[in-house]
Structure formats: structure tokens, C-alpha cells
């Protein structure tokens, strides 16, 4: 028993998944996108503010060729995260716009709704 048990769902904080697309002058490497977003959030909201949003970048869901990704955050701080993404102007020497495609309650729904992914469980 080296880990605490999972909290019951009533005690867990509610989360939201923000689907975003990075529009850029030229193609940007994954790591640069992740660092850029962290940097922008920390600058705009500060260390404490970012901590309160429960911000987390889901690197495994990032689609490199379309520059689409997901961010997890607390459901009360979606607006703060949106604002933090909006003030991003550059990643490296490329000008960027981080466009929020939408907000969802689960990863699966976010990918289905905003990434146009085929539902593998739908055989009809």
C-alpha cells in the first residue's frame, strides 16, 4: 500500500477538458508548444493562480500534424485558462494563436466532438 486510495466521486474536484488548436505561421515542435503554454499560463496567472486552476497538459492526446491538444483544468477556472491561452503571441520565432475549440467533461467526448475522431465503438 504505497498509494492513497481513490477518493469517492463526491469528494473529487470536478474537471473540464479544453480542446485547443495552435494556429501558427510555421510548424511548431510538440515540446515547444507545451513549454509555450506553460510559460504563458505561469506568466499571466502566476504560480499560485496556475496551481488553483488545476492546469495540466495532456501530452499523449496531442495530435502533432493538426496541432490539436487537450488541457485538463478545474471546472471553476476554465475562463482563467482561456484567458491565459489567449494572451500567447509567440512560440519561439513563430507568431501563434491558440484557439479554443470547446470544453468538455471527458477526454473521450472532447476528442469525438472537437478532433473529429472516428468512434471505434460505433459499427453501424
Amino acid at each position, binding site marked *: 500500500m504505497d498509494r492513497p486510495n481513490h477518493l469517492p466521486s463526491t469528494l473529487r474536484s470536478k474537471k473540464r477538458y479544453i480542446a485547443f488548436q495552435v494556429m501558427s*505561421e510555421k510548424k511548431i515542435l510538440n515540446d515547444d508548444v507545451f513549454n509555450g503554454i506553460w510559460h504563458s499560463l505561469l*506568466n499571466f496567472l502566476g504560480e499560485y493562480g496556475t496551481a488553483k486552476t488545476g492546469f495540466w497538459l495532456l501530452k499523449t492526446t496531442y495530435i502533432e500534424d493538426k496541432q490539436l491538444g487537450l488541457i485538463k483544468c478545474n471546472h471553476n477556472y476554465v*475562463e*482563467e485558462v482561456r*484567458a491565459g*491561452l*489567449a*494572451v500567447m503571441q509567440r512560440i519561439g520565432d513563430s507568431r501563434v*494563436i491558440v*484557439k479554443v475549440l470547446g470544453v468538455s467533461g471527458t477526454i473521450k467526448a472532447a476528442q469525438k466532438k472537437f478532433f473529429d475522431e472516428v468512434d471505434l465503438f460505433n459499427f453501424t
Partner: protein
Amino acid sequence: MRFYDLEIQSSLGEGANSVAEIARFAEHLGYSGIAICNKYESLEQIRKLKEEISKIETTVEIYVGVKIKTESVEELRKIIEQVREEVMVVVVAGGNYSINRAACENPKVDILAHPEFGRIDSGLDEVCLNLAKKNNVAIQINFTEIAEKYRRGRSSLLGRMDRNIRLTRELSVPTIVCSGAKSIWDMRDPREMISIVNIFGLEIEKSFSCLSMVPQNIIEDNKKRLSGEKITEGVELG
């Protein structure tokens, strides 16, 4: 809901992109209308802008505007008289207190842009805000100004904007959010612009109205005024 960005600069002014490029990008971002407000140089420049706009085919409504940048109140009044009948949106670049006050006093002005620009205070007091309310002058939150600043500069700017938003909310003065974009890369999705105002403490409905209702009222009011339907405040042809 219809969203409007009433201050974008094109390549005819200090901007980097043509009106066609701006319109295409605005359409992609989901705007219903935009106003091209280049820094005022001459009436000839406005005529050229009108010509350029007339050639563009797009679903986005494009309005001709002007941004007046001056340090003299007399010159400001003179330019406003010259351009008011020519353009849909008159924006006055604020910063100087006497200019801020002169803009709030003038019912021919639509938007007072960045009243806190280059100042250590917010640039507005109760007198200015009451005048702005009386004359229906919207106080602008300029997005590019926030995005371009960094750390200490941005922090103090946000503090000054926060004060202005609190005062406009308390005194019921119209507040508007504009991108102030000089390039398409300075433009943002309407919902992102709303989130910027929302984090200042405005309720979500009021934040939405900063990008939809307030600019829409400015446009509709000026359409009536330019067509001769509205003669002055409270006097309209039946």
C-alpha cells in the same frame, strides 16, 4: 450571437495585412462584423479604404472607421467634425487626461480607446465616466495592449484596466472589447476576448455584451445617423 471587433488596423494605416486578409481571418474566427480603424491622416486615406472594402466579397460586415491620435483637444474636435459624416466608427486614442475627457464630452465619439495608455493611473475619473455615460461613449479594453506587455508592465496595466472596469460597471458606462490588432496574428476568437473581460470580474452576460450588444448598438445608431433617420439623440424621423 453576433460578435464585432471594432478596432483593427489594415495595411493602409499602421497594420500589416490587407482588408481582404483581415476579413477572411475574421470570418474564420467567427465574427459577424469588423471595423477597420486606421490612424487618421487624411480624408483621402478614408476614401481609399472605402474603395478597398467595396471590392471585397465576404460574409463579414466591414465598416469604415478611424482612430484619432492627437495630443491637442482643439485638433481632436476639428478632426471629429471632419470625419464624423464619413465613417461608421470614431475611435479616440486615449492616454492623455485632457484627451480622455474631451472624448467623453463629445457625443460624436463612439469609443475611447485605452484611456490608461502610458499612465500610472487609470486615466478616468467620475466626471469623465458620467460624461461618457451621458454621451454614450464606450470605454475600450484593448486586447493587443495586454498581450504585448510582459510581467511588470502587464501586471500594472491589468490593475489599471481592472479599476476602469469596476468604475464602468458601477456607473453603468458601456464597455467594449476590441483586439486593436495590427496584424491577423493579433486577432483572437470572440470567446477568448470575452474570457479576458470575464476574469476582471464582469458577469458572463455583461462580458458577452462587451463584444456583441455594445458594438451592435454603436453600429445601428450610426447607420441611422448617417442615413439621416436619426437627427440627434432622442430625435428620429418616423
